C-alpha cells in the first residue's frame, strides 16, 4: 500500500515523460531517440543550434505532430494514441507562447486575453472583465488593455500573449523562442516573468531558446538537442562547469568547435583553382 502510494506521487509529479522518441518528416529523421523528463513547477530549457529539432520537439509535446516511435506522455496521456477530442481537452490545460506572440490582429489586447475564456467558459462578461485585467496586471500591461496588437512593441506583444496563455490557468506552458529579437530590458522582463509565473501558478514551463545567458540565469534544467539527440543535459551550474566540447562551445558562444563555422565544402585552394 505504501509502495503504491509512493508510486502514485512519483507518477503525478512528472508532467512530461519522453523515452526514446523518434520523429521523421517523410524520409528525413529529425529526432533520433530523445529522452526528457519535466516535473511540475520546473522551468526546462531546450537548447541547441538552429535546425536541430528543438521546435519539432515542442510541436510534438503540443500535439501538433505525432511521434514516429517511442513514448511521449503529457500529464499522463500517451500522445501517440490521443484522438482529436482528447487532444483538445488536453490543450485546455496547456498554453503556448509563439515566437512573435501570434496575437489576433483584429482584436484588442483585452479581447485577445479574453478569447480563451469566452471560447471555453460560460462566465459572465463582468467576471471575464476582472479576470482579463488580473492576467494583464500579472504581465504589467493592464494599462494597455485598450490597444490593438499593431500598437504594441515586440516585447509587449509577447507579454500579452503570455497573459493569454495563462488565462485558463494551464498546467504546462510551451515557449517557442520567447527571447528572440528582444532588447536587453524586455529580455530580462520576459525571463523573470516566465520564472515568476511558473513559481506562483505552480505550472511547468518548457522553453525552446538560443539565449544561453538568459536561460542559465532562470531555468532549472537544460537539455541540449543536437542532430536529433540529447547531446548534453544538466542544471545551469553543471553546464557552466562542463568540459564537454559541444557544451563549452555553446555556453561560451565560440565560433568554431564541434559545430563548425564552415558549411562542408571542397578545399579552399581547390575552389579558388590555385595550384598546390
Amino acid at each position, binding site marked *: 500500500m505504501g509502495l503504491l502510494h509512493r508510486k502514485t506521487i512519483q507518477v503525478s509529479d512528472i508532467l512530461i515523460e519522453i523515452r526514446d522518441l523518434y520523429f521523421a518528416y517523410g524520409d528525413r529523421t529529425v529526432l533520433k531517440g530523445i529522452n526528457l523528463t519535466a516535473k511540475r513547477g520546473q522551468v526546462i530549457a531546450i537548447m541547441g543550434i538552429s535546425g536541430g529539432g528543438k521546435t519539432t520537439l515542442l510541436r510534438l509535446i503540443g500535439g501538433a505532430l505525432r511521434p514516429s516511435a517511442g513514448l511521449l506522455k503529457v500529464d499522463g496521456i500517451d500522445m501517440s494514441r490521443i484522438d482529436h477530442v482528447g487532444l483538445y481537452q488536453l490543450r485546455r490545460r496547456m498554453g503556448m507562447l*509563439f515566437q512573435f506572440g501570434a*496575437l489576433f490582429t483584429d482584436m484588442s489586447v483585452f479581447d485577445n486575453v479574453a478569447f480563451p475564456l469566452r471560447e471555453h467558459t460560460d462566465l459572465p462578461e463582468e467576471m471575464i472583465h476582472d479576470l482579463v485585467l488580473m492576467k494583464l496586471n500579472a504581465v504589467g500591461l493592464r494599462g494597455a488593455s485598450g490597444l490593438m496588437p499593431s500598437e504594441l512593441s515586440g516585447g509587449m506583444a509577447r507579454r500579452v500573449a503570455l497573459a493569454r496563455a495563462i488565462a485558463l490557468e494551464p498546467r504546462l506552458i510551451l515557449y517557442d523562442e520567447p527571447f528572440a529579437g528582444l532588447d536587453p530590458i524586455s529580455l530580462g522582463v520576459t525571463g523573470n516573468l516566465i520564472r515568476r509565473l511558473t513559481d506562483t501558478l505552480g505550472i511547468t514551463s518548457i522553453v525552446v531558446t538560443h539565449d544561453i545567458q538568459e536561460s542559465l540565469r532562470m531555468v532549472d534544467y537544460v537539455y541540449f538537442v543536437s542532430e536529433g539527440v540529447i547531446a548534453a543535459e544538466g542544471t545551469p551550474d553543471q553546464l557552466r562547469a562542463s568540459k564537454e566540447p559541444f557544451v563549452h562551445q555553446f555556453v561560451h558562444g565560440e565560433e568554431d568547435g564541434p559545430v563548425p563555422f564552415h558549411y562542408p565544402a571542397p578545399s579552399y585552394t581547390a575552389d579558388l583553382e590555385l595550384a598546390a
Partner: protein
Amino acid sequence: MMDFAQAGLRRIGRRIIDSIWRMGTATRFLALTLLHSGQSFSRFQLTIREIFSAGVLSLIIILVSGLFVGMVLGLQGYETLQTYGSEEALGILVSLSLVRELGPVVAALLFASRAGSAITAEIGLMKATEQIAAMEMMAVDPIARVVAPRFWGAVISMPLLAALFSAMGIFGGYLVGVVLIGVDEGAFWSQMQAAVDFREDILNGVIKSVVFGVAVTVIALFEGYDAPPTAEGVSRATTRTVVTSSLAILGLDFILTAFMFSGV
C-alpha cells in the same frame, strides 16, 4: 524525340493529377466547413461580422458597377431596338439581361476580386503569423471559429449583392432610357413587369448567385488556408483566388444557364 514526348506527357499528366487532387482536398475542406458550421449559427454575431466585411464593404463597388452596367445596357439596347421600332421593349431587355445573367455573374466577379481576395489574404496572413496555430493550441477549432463564419457570411451576402446589382442596373437603364433618351415610362415599366417571370427569371438568378457565392467563397477560403506561410505564398494564393473563381463563375454560369433556360 520519344523521350522528349514522354517527358511532356508525364508533365501534363502530373498537372492533371495535381489539379484533381487539389479539387478533392478543397471538397473535403468544404465538407469539413459545413460539418463545423454549428457555431456560425449558435453564435450568429460571428457570422454577422463577416457579412459586414464581405457584404457591406462590397456595397460601393457593386452599386456603382451595377449603375454603369445598367446605363450602358440602356444606351446599347436603345440603339439596337430603335432599328426595329421597338424601343418600348428596352425595359425587358435591361431587366432580363440583368436578372438572368449580368446581375449574378458580374456581381460574383466583383465579389471575387473584392471580398474573395480579402478573405484569402486575411486567412493566409493569419496562418503566416501563426494565429491559426495559436488558435489550435488554445483548443479552438479554426475551421469552426474562422472558416465557417466567413463561409456563411459570404454565402449569405452574395445573392443580396447580386439582387442589389440588378436593381441598381435597372435604375441605370431607366435613367438613360427614360429620363435621358425619352422612351415612354409606362411602356418601360409595364413591359418589364409583364415579361419578367418570378420563378423562371428571378429565382433562377438567385440560384445562380448562391452557387457562385459558394464557389467563390470555398476557393477563397481554401486558397488562404492552403497558402504557404510566406509573403510570396500569400500573394500567389490571392492571385489564384481571383483567377480560379472568375473561371469557375463563368464555367458554372454556362452549365447553369444550359440547365435553366435551354431545357437541357
